[in-house]
């Protein structure tokens, strides 16, 4: 049961990754290329000003590493498909746990609600503080701090969302679905507001970086995530409904023989 849900989650995640690749290729890659062009121009200016011995060790590490063609093609599709399959699988596991424990909502509805909650907590909240950045706008030496802050916010956001669902579940019987959802959502928003205010801001934007490229990059990054979560949320429910329908049928049958 759980295994077959997991497999379907990963399968729909692969599909989500493929659709996202099409979108990323058309809308995301041109912005990445523009950012890299800016980065190279910046590096060239720096190299021209720096003394000869002071060159950054960038060029010599390039040997044998994937070039731009691979990065924008096979690398991009691999990254998106692996990510899609992984989040699709984790989504299926969360679904398997939540199903039948959040009131009378059916498989398709639950899948859509969970995907919306996942999008809010995994994508929307982290990007409010640490938005997606194209190449060239972050400093290499701060990657440790930036990675830590990003994942701390991600864990707090997803953990807060899980607590919000637990709260909604406790309030369900007494306040009904609508009010329970409103109260739990308000609690999540209040918690996240405090977290977002408390966490340090990062701003390493180099002077002269095109605001258009930044905006277009970020909007296509959000577009990719919307596609991934929409495909998973809407697609997984349909697949899960069939699996669970069989389950209900066999459970009833088994019960009648008892």
């Amino acid at each position, binding site marked *: 049961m759980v295994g077959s849900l997991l497999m379907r989650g990963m399968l729909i995640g692969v599909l989500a990754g493929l659709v996202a690749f099409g979108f990323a290729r058309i809308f995301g890659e041109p912005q990445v290329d523009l950012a890299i062009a800016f980065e190279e121009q910046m590096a060239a200016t720096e190299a021209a000003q720096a003394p000869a011995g002071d060159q950054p060790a960038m060029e010599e590490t390039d040997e044998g*590493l994937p070039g731009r063609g691979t990065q924008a093609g096979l690398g991009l599709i*691999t990254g998106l498909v*692996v990510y899609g399959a992984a989040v699709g699988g984790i989504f299926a596991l969360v679904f398997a746990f939540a199903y039948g424990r959040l009131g*009378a909502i059916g498989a398709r509805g*639950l899948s859509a609600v969970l995907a919306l909650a996942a999008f809010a907590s995994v994508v929307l909240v*982290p990007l409010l503080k640490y*938005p997606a950045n194209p190449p060239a706008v972050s400093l290499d030496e701060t*990657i440790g701090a930036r990675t*830590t802050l990003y994942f701390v916010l991600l864990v707090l956001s997803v953990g807060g969302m899980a607590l919000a669902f637990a709260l909604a579940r406790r309030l369900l019987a007494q306040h009904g679905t609508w009010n329970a959802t409103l109260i739990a959502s308000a609690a999540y928003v209040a918690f996240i507001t405090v977290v977002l205010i408390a966490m340090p801001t990062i701003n390493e934007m180099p002077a002269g970086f095109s605001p258009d490229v930044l905006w277009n990059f970020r909007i296509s*990054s959000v577009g990719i995530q919307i596609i991934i979560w929409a495909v998973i949320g809407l697609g997984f429910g349909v697949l899960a409904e069939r699996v669970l329908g069989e389950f209900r049928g066999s459970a009833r049958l088994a019960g009648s023989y008892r």
Partner: protein
Amino acid sequence: MSDITFAPAHQPVAIPIAEVLPWAIFGGLLLMIAIYFVGAEEGATSLISGMYIHEFVHDGRHLLGFPCH
């Protein structure tokens, strides 16, 4: 067949925790490792030496919103 058609349609039956848990632990762990390789390997932390994985999934890492360069 009629028994299924006329039964109360949406009364979802929860899957027992004992059945979900092993999948959640082992599956969840493996899938999170997969996300780690797309999102963070050879950035702040490195399990495999070199920069091949980082460079290979590089565009996806940026576009998915993970911290990079």
